[in-house]
């Protein structure tokens, strides 16, 4: 541990850490070992691309997980291969000087734009303002000049928790406001730093963005369902489930499906790449996936400890599980059928059967 701390303090990236970071990214990208030298070469030689990192409605958790929590070499590798011209959390400049840097890069150089955080749109976007401008204005100014945009985190991609119904500030993701620019979405709360680093390295090595799915997520990181790579999958197939948190089955490490795991509906590389260099991810430590890489997860994946959302009965304001609603409707139907039959029989008893 102490060793780890002192390494974190050392701002220099040594060759070993550099190679290690590149190798991790190559593994995440699914590149063969033979490609690693090319990746290393690109990372070492390419002119460091300028990156502008905008923070809007967010918690800075994505930056936090990228720069601190995970493998220290990853963060240093990242800072080594890009030139981070503007990033509110880590830049040394402040005030007018910072604004100066931003405008200088935007107006005079090609750059990659990274957006972290949702953009509130209600009432002309007054719910998020930086340097006297709304997030909407800043994005409209910077985005058209970017060579490509990377939206990092579930806020910048799909609006984030602040977009949960009834979405009071009208928060939306970058792709809802910007068109005509290549956009890569790296959702997650937070996303795995490797997915971000992999995207950047892919761009540096091959001069193009990675292949995306129809939600603009890179396939190398979001091409598979969590459920299909999960280490508890055998328990699922063989029907061994945790019934309740803390029960015997939970201690035995059975599948978390019945306590609301959203792995079957969620695309991400969590089970393969894992987090924080200690080889863990939520399911491995006994908590179901909450589906944070999927659009509207705050509405569609809740309640987190139920498998499916509750059914709302329009007008009535009643909220119940879908199956209870179904059972009620089926019961009413059966009762209606019974009454219908009884009326028919009663009528026949009174009037007698019509003769053919």
């Amino acid at each position: 541990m102490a060793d780890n701390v002192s390494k974190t303090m050392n701002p220099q990236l040594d060759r070993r850490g550099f190679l290690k970071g590149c190798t991790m990214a190559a593994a995440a990208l699914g590149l063969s070992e033979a490609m690693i030298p090319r990746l290393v070469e690109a990372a070492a030689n390419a002119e460091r691309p300028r990156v502008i990192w905008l923070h809007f409605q967010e918690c800075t958790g994505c930056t936090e997980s990228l720069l601190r929590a995970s493998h220290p070499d990853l963060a240093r590798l990242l800072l080594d291969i890009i030139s981070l011209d503007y990033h509110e959390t880590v830049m040394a400049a402040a005030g007018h000087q910072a604004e100066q840097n931003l405008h200088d890069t935007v107006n005079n150089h090609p750059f990659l734009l990274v957006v972290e955080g949702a953009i509130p749109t209600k009432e002309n976007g007054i719910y998020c303002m930086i340097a006297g401008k709304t997030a909407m204005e800043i994005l409209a100014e910077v985005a058209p000049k970017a060579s490509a945009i990377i939206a990092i985190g579930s806020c910048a991609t799909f609006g984030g928790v602040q977009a949960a119904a009834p979405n009071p500030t009208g928060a939306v993701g970058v792709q809802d406001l910007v068109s005509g620019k290549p956009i890569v979405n790296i959702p997650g709360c937070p996303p795995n730093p490797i997915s971000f680093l992999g995207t950047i390295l892919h761009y540096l090595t091959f001069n193009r963005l990675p292949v995306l799915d129809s939600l603009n997520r890179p396939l190398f990181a979001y091409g598979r369902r969590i459920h299909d790579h999960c280490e508890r999958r055998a328990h699922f197939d063989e029907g061994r489930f945790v019934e309740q948190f803390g029960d015997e089955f939970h201690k035995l490490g059975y599948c978390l499906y019945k306590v609301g795991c959203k792995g079957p509906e969620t695309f991400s590389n969590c089970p393969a790449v894992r987090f924080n260099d200690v080889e863990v991810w939520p399911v491995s430590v006994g908590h179901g996936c909450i589906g944070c890489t999927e659009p509207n997860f705050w509405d569609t994946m809740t309640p987190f400890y139920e498998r499916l959302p509750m059914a709302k009965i329009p007008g009535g304001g009643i909220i119940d599980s879908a199956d209870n609603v179904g059972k009620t409707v089926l019961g009413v139907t059966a009762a209606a059928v019974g009454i219908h039959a009884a009326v028919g029989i009663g009528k026949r008893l009174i009037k007698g059967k019509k003769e053919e």
Partner: protein
Amino acid sequence: MATYERYHCWSILLRLFHWMFALSIVFLVVTGFYISNPWTNTLLEGSASFPMATMRYIHFIAAYVFSAALAIRLFLYIFGNAQERILDILPVTRRNLNNLKMTFLQYTYLSGDHDERLGHNILAGLAYLLTFVAAVVMMLSGFFMLYPEISFWEGWGVLLFGSQQSARYLHHLLMWWFMIFAVIHIYLCIWNDCTEPEGLISSIFTGAKFKHKA
């Protein structure tokens, strides 16, 4: 004593569709309930039983039968015989509108008159059409969940449902329609069989109905 004549009504394909559809739905509902809320817990590890995998496997086989049945019905809506074509059950002609009204009155016991026709009455026909549409949604959401990595299903699925979870939720909610439909449907078949001596229930096995001699 009235005399009856035997009329051919349903082609063999339609009857095949009916039983493929009805039987697959029974399996789909039962296995669907299991997938949704597995009611067993395999306590012995290594006992080589795979209840969830097996239930899903049955669900998918039934799903293919179900989808094939839908393809048959689609074909018959366009190329079937006079009773099977879609125009026969749409309330667009005067004859059909009148039948809808009379069926409604008959089913609510407001009138004892039965509008004689060979095919479905319009109320039934519309319920079947609605069920067909619901079935198509089941099929689309089902295949989207089954093949999320195939770009065809991925593209259409995201476009139609937004995400796997939304597709799954809709798939689950719509299941209830099929159960409700089955209750009403079987009841009304029996009811009709008791009220009108046209041999309605046997028609879905034999393809023939009995009508008054003209």
